[in-house]
């Protein structure tokens, strides 16, 4: 504990004028010790990535450090010139990023990209470089490393690309590895593997790792020490066990309390009620490409023979990793995507067969909440208009529709005066509330929430989930909740359908899915949830 490789003292980074606060990072001090993993945790806008960026000289143009120092091996990194930094970067301090696809050069073979790291520092001969590249790929556990050497980034999966990034970062045996949200873009099972890999390599090479994340589950999984940031300040720091089990600061407590737990209720709502929605044998196949003369077209079976029912007042979760077809199911139900086969019975109609005016009418009873709170509201429309448009299209008078919009805004916990404002005046969580109000405006019986809380910070996420649960109760809605996050699913869903490669591999009450999974795939998903052990401990103790 006594020999920090890096110590940051009173670091202060100024934001350009007109930003929402003066300093991105305000009087921050911490040490990074040899052979430990330090997690910097915070919600979006907390300034958690800023100190790492300052260290690497990667701050945006108008953002600059105005005070403090970053001491590494006796030198203050903030005083170094670009050339001196260049020598340090990669060789002694390496970094991996969130999105491995955009961090790799798409037109370069993996072998050349790794060799480039040596080339940049004028090390080794070309032959040695390629031998070393192969060694590194073996070390990070890429399947078939010889083949991966010759591959381009697009031929690898997300997890494999992140492994390549890690191999590049390790190439020159750095003393410090900075990992900025390295698993956020990955599926949960891949995330578990990458976390394990980082942990293992850190031990083997004795590196210090600075791990920046928003996810407390990941923290529980990997951290030795934790620093929690809010509004550019460190509000709490300590060992992982201290901070997670016994948080002292209110903000940390709030954040940890906001994480959905995996404990599920055994009672299942709506099991004895009549189904509002019946889906039978839904299929959707994409055929793309085929190239010249249509040979070898790429066929993707996005949805294969999916059947389920949804009872009044019930929440059905559809969970799966990316590419499992979970969103395609939702889009087929509302016909934003045309299903190839199957039946969607809703209120006496088969949604899958309706056309034109009849479809327009039937869609009133099935509405959708979207993922991205920034893309789901028209930036040039006022909130009132956004909510009232639907009812007005169905012949409700303008006055009535606007009065109703005010009522809905209050229902979702916003002020009725929001009606005259534009979307950009609201935060992500507030926008998502507006999206919910819009979905409710047509008084639907079924609402499909497609990753509706995935883009939100954990504390906001908890509020929106509570709101959804409350509204569902009050308005007797049936909810289809599509998510990749099993924790969220555990909190809100009565029943869960697990999807893999377009098929439903398991469908049952949430309690059974989590406590007694039948399919091997479901089991592997649940085992991969970060921070699961901590969670279970908490459940048994309290």
């Amino acid at each position, binding site marked *: 504990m006594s020999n920090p490789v890096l110590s940051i003292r009173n670091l202060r980074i100024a934001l350009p004028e007109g930003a929402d606060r003066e300093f991105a990072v305000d009087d921050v001090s911490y040490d990074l010790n040899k052979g430990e993993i330090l997690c910097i945790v915070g919600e979006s806008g907390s300034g958690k990535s800023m100190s790492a960026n300052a260290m690497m000289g990667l701050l945006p*143009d108008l953002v600059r450090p105005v005070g403090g120092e970053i001491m590494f091996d006796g030198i203050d990194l903030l005083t170094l010139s670009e050339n001196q930094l260049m020598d340090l970067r990669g060789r002694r301090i390496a970094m991996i990023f969130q999105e491995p696809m955009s961090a790799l050069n798409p037109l370069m073979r993996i072998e050349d990209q790794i060799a480039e790291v040596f080339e940049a520092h004028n090390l080794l001969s070309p032959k040695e470089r390629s031998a070393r590249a192969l060694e590194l790929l073996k070390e990070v556990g890429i399947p078939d490393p010889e083949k991966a050497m010759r591959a381009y980034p697009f031929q690898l999966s997300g997890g494999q690309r992140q492994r390549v990034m890690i191999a590049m970062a390790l190439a020159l045996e750095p003393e410090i590895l900075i990992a900025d949200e390295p698993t956020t873009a990955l599926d949960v099972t891949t995330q578990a593997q990458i976390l394990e890999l980082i942990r293992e390599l850190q031990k083997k090479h004795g590196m210090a790792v600075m791990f920046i994340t928003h996810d407390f589950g990941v923290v529980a999984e990997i951290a030795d020490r934790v620093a929690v940031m809010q509004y550019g300040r460190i509000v709490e720091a300590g060992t992982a066990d201290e901070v997670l089990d016994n948080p002292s600061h209110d903000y940390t407590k709030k954040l940890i309390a906001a994480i959905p737990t995996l404990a599920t209720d055994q009672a299942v709502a709506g099991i004895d009620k009549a189904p509002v929605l019946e889906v039978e044998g839904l299929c959707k196949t994409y055929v793309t490409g085929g190239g010249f003369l249509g040979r070898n077209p790429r066929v993707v079976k996005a949805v294969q023979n999916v059947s389920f029912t949804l009872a009044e007042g019930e929440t059905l979760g559809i969970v799966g990793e990316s590419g499992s077809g979970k969103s395609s199911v939702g889009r087929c139900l*509302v016909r*934003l995507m045309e299903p190839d086969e199957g039946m969607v019975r809703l209120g006496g109609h088969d949604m899958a067969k309706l056309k034109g005016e009849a479809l327009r009418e039937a*869609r009133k009873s099935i509405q959708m909440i979207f*993922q991205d709170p920034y893309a*789901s509201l028209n930036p040039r*429309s006022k909130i009132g208009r956004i909510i009232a448009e639907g009812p007005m299209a*169905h012949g409700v008078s303008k006055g009535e529709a606007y009065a109703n919009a005010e009522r809905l805004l209050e229902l979702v916990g916003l002020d009725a005066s929001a009606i005259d404002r534009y979307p950009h005046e609201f935060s992500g969580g507030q926008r998502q509330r507006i999206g919910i109000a819009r979905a409710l405006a047509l008084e639907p019986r079924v609402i499909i929430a497609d990753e509706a809380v995935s883009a939100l910070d954990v504390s906001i996420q908890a509020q929106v989930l509570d709101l959804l649960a409350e509204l569902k109760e009050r308005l007797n809605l049936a909810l289809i909740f599509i998510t990749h996050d099993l924790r969220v699913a555990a909190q809100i869903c009565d029943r869960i359908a697990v999807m893999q490669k377009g098929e439903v591999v398991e469908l049952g009450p949430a309690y059974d899915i989590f406590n007694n999974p039948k399919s091997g795939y479901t089991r592997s998903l649940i085992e991969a949830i970060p921070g699961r052990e901590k969670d279970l401990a908490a459940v048994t103790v309290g």
Partner: protein
Amino acid sequence: MKDFWKRYSRNRGAVIGLVILAIVVVVAILAPLVFPQSPWRMVQRPFLPPLSMDQYPLGTDALGRDVMAGLAYGAQVSLLVGLVSTVAALLIGIPIGALAGYFGGWADDALMRFTEFFQTVPSFALAIVLVAIFQPSIYSIIAAIAIVSWPPVARLVRGEVLSLRSREYVEAAILSGQKSGTIIMRQVLPNTISPIIVLASLMVATAILLESSLSFLGLGDPNMMSWGYMIGAARTVIRQAWWLSFFPGVAILLTVLALNLIGEGLNDALNPRLARKGK
């Protein structure tokens, strides 16, 4: 709006462009007041050099007409042709682009092949042919310029609409039961306005150049004095009377330059995220 001006005025060139354009507009409006007589009227002996008589500071042309009056009336023609033909081109291009982009499929194919038909013909040659067929007049010139300059508008709008129509708010509008027409008018087109305004400002400049070129070739409206006509008429005497082609040339240059600067400034102001760094 205040924000918009702040971002716009950060581009110094754009402000200069706006000032030049304002001067041209004022000259065009005041032309009939300052020069109550027709610019075609002979007022002095021919080939009077600039600054030789106080009353005619820019001199007179081969038939003794006042060059200054010609420039002022020419500004009217240039601005009128530039603005009206651009508006006409937008009225053709925006609906075609929006329909092609929104509906896709065969509608897109048909409309885009139609657009390409116009794009593959050299625009200036097509304009000459059109004006020649319909007899040179201010109307036929405006029509010809509009007909040759709408394809880029259609392509731009189509591209924007293609990317906008897969946005979640458009999908939400579809689900809430709005009809396609309403969705295009209310959800999609308002969000394409910024690039259209920028393109339009540049199209006005191109239209002024096209009109000048047509007039230079003698295809201008015979009843209206225009900068292109003045240069065209003076080309045979360019060595004896340089000022006859020089001043209208400078007028065209400054106006077109001003419009380009304004277009660039609008681009910075309307697309702040795309604005170049370091300003």
